[in-house]
C-alpha cells in the first residue's frame, strides 16, 4: 500500500533533488564542502587506539584493538587487519539489532579497503614469529548518531585511531594490555571523499536528508602521494567517464585539505 506518508516523502525527496540540481543545498553548503568536523582521540582507554568523530551531526566512535593470532597461510610473515562496523539501533530509528546487514558490511569493507590498499600499515612489522604468531589489528566502527556520510567519517576516525594507537606488550604468550607503549608501524594517511549523485550532479559529504533523496554515491579514497587507492559506486546511479575524472580531481584536492587539517 502506498500510504500518505510515503507520498509526502516522495514529494519532499523530489524537492531536495531539484534544489541540488539547481546548485543549492538546504544547509547552504557549496557542492564540494564538508560539514564541520570535530575529532577527539584516545576517547576510550581500553582500546589500543580510538577516535571519536563528529561530522555535522553524524557521530562515530572507532576503536582499534590488537591481539595475537596465527597468520594466513599465504602471508606467513604478515599481521592481519579486520574491520567491522556495527550500525547499532541507538544511532538511528531505521537501524535494527542483529548481525551486520549489507549496508554495514559495505561500510566496513570500503573503510577497510582504503586503509589496506593505501599500505598505511606495514604488516610485515606486525609479524612476531613467521608462520606462527602475528599481531591482528581489529578496527571497530561504532556509529552513535547517523546523519549521513558514514564512510568518510569512519575512514577519517579509523586512520586517526591507527596513528594514535599504542601497541600492548606481548610476553610469554600473553598480551599485556596494561602496558602499551610503541606506536603502530603506520605511514600514509588515506582519506575517503564521498559524493552523492543526483542525476548528473555530484555533491560532497551528503547529509542524511541528502542521502535519502540521492540516486546513489561514489567514494574515492586517495593517499598523500596523490594516488587513488579505492573507489566504490553504490546505489542506483550511473556516471560518465568525464564526470568520474572530475570527481577524482576533487577527491585528490579535498583529501589533501583534510589530511592537512585533521591528520597533520
Amino acid at each position, binding site marked *: 500500500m502506498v500510504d500518505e506518508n510515503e507520498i509526502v516523502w516522495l514529494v519532499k525527496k523530489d524537492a531536495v533533488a531539484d534544489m541540488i540540481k539547481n546548485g543549492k543545498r538546504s544547509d547552504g553548503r557549496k557542492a564540494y564542502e564538508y560539514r564541520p568536523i570535530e575529532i577527539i582521540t584516545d*576517547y*576510550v*582507554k*581500553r*582500546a589500543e587506539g*580510538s577516535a571519536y568523530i563528529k561530522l555535522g*551531526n553524524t*557521530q562515530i*566512535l572507532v*576503536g*582499534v*584493538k590488537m*591481539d595475537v593470532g596465527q597468520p594466513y597461510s599465504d602471508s606467513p610473515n604478515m599481521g592481519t587487519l579486520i574491520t*567491522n562496523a*556495527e550500525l*547499532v*539501533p*541507538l*544511532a*538511528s*530509528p531505521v537501524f535494527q*539489532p542483529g*548481525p*551486520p546487514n549489507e549496508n554495514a558490511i559495505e561500510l566496513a569493507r570500503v573503510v577497510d579497503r582504503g586503509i589496506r590498499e593505501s599500505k598505511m600499515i606495514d604488516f610485515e612489522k606486525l609479524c612476531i614469529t613467521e608462520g606462527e604468531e602475528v599481531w591482528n589489528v*581489529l578496527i*571497530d566502527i*561504532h556509529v*552513535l*548518531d*547517523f*546523519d549521513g556520510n558514514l564512510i568518510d567519517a569512519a575512514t577519517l576516525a579509523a586512520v586517526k585511531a591507527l596513528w594514535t594507537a599504542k601497541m600492548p606488550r606481548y610476553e610469554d604468550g600473553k598480551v599485556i*594490555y596494561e602496558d602499551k607503549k610503541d606506536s603502530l608501524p603506520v605511514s600514509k594517511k588515506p582519506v575517503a571523499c564521498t559524493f552523492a549523485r543526483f542525476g548528473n550532479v555530484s555533491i560532497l559529504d551528503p547529509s542524511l536528508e541528502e542521502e535519502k533523496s540521492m540516486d546513489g554515491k561514489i567514494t574515492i579514497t586517495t593517499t598523500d602521494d596523490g594516488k587513488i587507492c579505492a573507489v566504490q559506486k553504490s546505489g542506483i546511479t550511473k556516471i560518465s567517464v568525464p564526470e568520474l575524472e572530475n570527481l577524482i580531481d576533487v577527491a585528490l584536492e579535498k583529501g589533501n585539505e583534510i589530511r592537512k587539517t585533521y591528520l597533520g
Partner: protein
Amino acid sequence: MGMKKEGLKLFENGKRIDGRAYDELRPIKMEVGVLKRADGSCYLEWGGNKVLAAVYGPRECLPRHTQDPLKARINYRYNMAPFSTDERVRPGPSRRSIEISKLSKEALEHVIFTEYFPKTSIDIFVEILQADAGTRCAGLTAASLALADAGIPMKSLITACAAGKIDGKVVLDLGKLEDNFGEADLPIAYMPRTKELVYLQMDGDLTKDEFKEALRLALKGCDEIYRIQRDALKKAYEGEVNGR
C-alpha cells in the same frame, strides 16, 4: 567475584585501592540530549565507565504480532562496544547482556506508564563505550534519564548503584579491580521517593548483617546519584527554556 588476588590489598588504612573511602562513589557526570536522531538520550561517565543511552518511541511496534493491545512494549538492549574492555568483546548479544537487558527492562517497565501507549514499543538502547565495573547500574541510570529526555511519562525516575565487599569490608560502588577480586557485589535500583527496589541482584558471600549494610550503602549511593540526575535534567530544561 572469586578471582584469586595473591597479596593484593584492596582495603588498607581505611582507604581503598583508588584512594576512596568505604562509602564514596567514583566521580559521575551526566548530560542529556546528546544525540540528534534519538527521541531521548543521555551520556554518562562514572569512574571509568562511558555509557550512552538512547530512547526511541513510543512508536508502532513491529512486527505487528508482537504488539500488546493494552500497553506499550518495552525493549531494552544493553550492549558492550567491542573495544570497551581489554579483551575485545564479540559483537552481538551474550548470555550476560541478555540477562542484564531483561532485568533492566523489567525495572523500567515498573515505572513507565505503559498503558498510555497501547500497541507501541518504547525502545531503549544502552551502549557501553568503555567499561569499568558497574556498567549495568550506569546503563540503567542513563536509560532512566534518556526516557525523561524523551518525555516518556513515568511514575518515578530510577537510580541505580551497587555496593560490595572487599577484603571482608562492605563498601560502596566497586571499581574494576575491586570487582575482579572482591567477595560480593549487590547492584540495585530504586525509586527515589519510596526507596523501594526495582532492580536487585547479588552474588558473592554476605552474612545477613553484611547484606543489610551493603543495602544501606547502595541506597545512600542512589541518593547521591539521584541528585546528579536531577541536576542534569534541570540543566537540560534550562537550556531548552533559554532556547539552546
